[in-house]
């Protein structure tokens, strides 16, 4: 459904954001892109969205290579809400819709109900709390019913409680629409809770260090006990990578034979199902 092959992004000033990134996202997947700050996660998402052009490599949707245009079926939720401050909530939600005023209002109200903001239609962004604003942003992305919804650390600016609420909201919506969700995050717990596959990025410029597929019977659980082994292995990748790239390679090589720095296929389960 979404495939990324050997993607490299170089900024105008010569800085390499990431290089040689490859992974594949199936329909209905929630794929976490996990990595430390500055490893190029946001940039990767922007390239996928079509907001920036890659240096080399391919992004393809449904097997079709994406040109320089922004894809029809793609929606984006940014790290900040990015609401239009001059529009009330309902107009912000229906910002991307092309329809009569009445339909727009109806659709906005329906979605606002879903994200728990009924009654706030006429509020202006400056009158909203951070969590409410982010929910409006989620509603705005959903109203266009995208097949692929790109999320760039959508909950990172929120308090723990609101974050948990919105994570559950995202899962509810996903269960309803079965849209594909590439999700950038630097929170391991969030990735473990939401995702079925986790692409671990490392380094500057960022590369794919590992692609972890979570066991199907442990998806969407906040019981991180049962995922402790997975968490530990991801943690090790991130930590070791920080120390030395070369040593990580030699350390992991015997464990997962097929894994190289660029994993184009989800790694079967050497690292993840060790505890099973």
């Amino acid at each position: 459904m979404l495939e990324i092959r050997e993607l490299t992004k170089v900024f105008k000033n010569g800085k390499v954001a990431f290089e040689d990134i490859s992974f594949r996202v199936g329909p209905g997947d929630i794929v976490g892109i996990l990595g430390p700050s500055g490893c190029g996660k946001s940039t990767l998402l922007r390239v996928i969205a079509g907001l920036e052009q890659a240096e080399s490599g391919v992004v393809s949707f449904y097997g079709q290579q994406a040109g320089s245009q922004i894809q029809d079926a793609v929606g984006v939720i940014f790290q900040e809400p990015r609401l239009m401050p001059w529009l009330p909530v309902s107009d912000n939600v229906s910002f991307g819709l092309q329809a009569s005023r009445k339909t727009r209002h109806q659709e906005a109200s329906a979605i606002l109900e879903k994200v728990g903001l009924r009654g706030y239609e006429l509020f202006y962004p400056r009158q909203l709390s951070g969590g409410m604003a982010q929910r409006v942003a989620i509603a705005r992305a959903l109203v266009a019913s995208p097949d692929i919804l790109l999320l760039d650390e959508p909950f990172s600016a929120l308090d723990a409680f609101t974050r948990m609420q919105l994570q559950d909201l995202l899962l509810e919506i996903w269960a309803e629409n079965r849209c594909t969700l590439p999700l950038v995050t630097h929170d391991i717990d969030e990735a473990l809770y939401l995702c079925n596959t986790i692409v671990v990025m490392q380094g500057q410029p960022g590369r794919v260090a590992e692609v972890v597929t979570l066991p199907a019977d442990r998806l969407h659980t906040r019981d991180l006990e049962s995922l402790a082994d997975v968490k530990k292995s991801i943690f090790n990748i991130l930590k070791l990578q920080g120390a030395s790239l070369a040593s990580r390679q030699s350390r992991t090589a015997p464990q997962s034979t097929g894994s190289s720095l660029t994993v184009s296929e989800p790694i079967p389960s050497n690292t993840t199902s060790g505890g099973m």
Partner: protein
Amino acid sequence: MSVSPSARRLVQRVLVGIVIPVVVVVLWQILCQRGVFPSDLLPAPSAICQAFLAMGSNGTLWADVDATCVRLVLGFVFGALAGLVLGALVGFFETLEWLIDPMIQSVRSVPSLAWVPLFILWMGIGEGSKITLIAVGVFFPVYLATMNGIRYVDRKLLEVGQVFRFPRWKLIWRITIPSSLPAIFTGLRAGLGLGWMFVVAAELMGASQGLGYLLETGQNTYAPELIVGSIVLFAILGKVSDGILRVLERRLLHWHDSFGNRETGWPQTRGSLDTQAPGH
């Protein structure tokens, strides 16, 4: 009891605002009556009022006020329109910026009164040269504010529109223009202030009507009450015209985050917000 909190706040503000003017006028009147100020230099407020009431009742005052206001409005409209259009073009198109902006910036550094002889030469001392001078004064702040407002529109908001695949005109109409309105309004208000300055300059330069003409008459006929009275009228008209723009601004830009803080620089609680509750 039935007065809304925001209306009460407004009344409060106006009452507080006129305290100092009232005290000054009363003191002034008392001091004049005691002969502290020579009345041929600084007439008493009562004398000024009398003189202006007399002019008001025989109609000449209104003709003067009218002439000045018409000049100001016409100059403001032309200057602001030119500033908006050119500022927008230069803000949108980088090539135009390279082409036009250096020229406009260098023209801007000419002290505007230096244009007067040229305009009089071209258009005589009639209305044309006066209105042009006022328009020139209004133009620059509006041009600068519009250009900057449009050029520095938040890229992050534009990306929201891009993700929805808005064509360029739609990005401009739905994101760039609304988000640059606060800057544009600031420019309009600055332009209006300069407009009042230039209206006086233009009328001092030779006019047979208008408040500036009244000022000059006062000087030539040793009538200080005309001068002081005209100054007070300028103050009132300036305040009223700025008030009109402010009402418009409040209407259009009530969403603006820093609105209401801009004038004082201090955060204020706004009554209309405190009382709002989510409907159900």
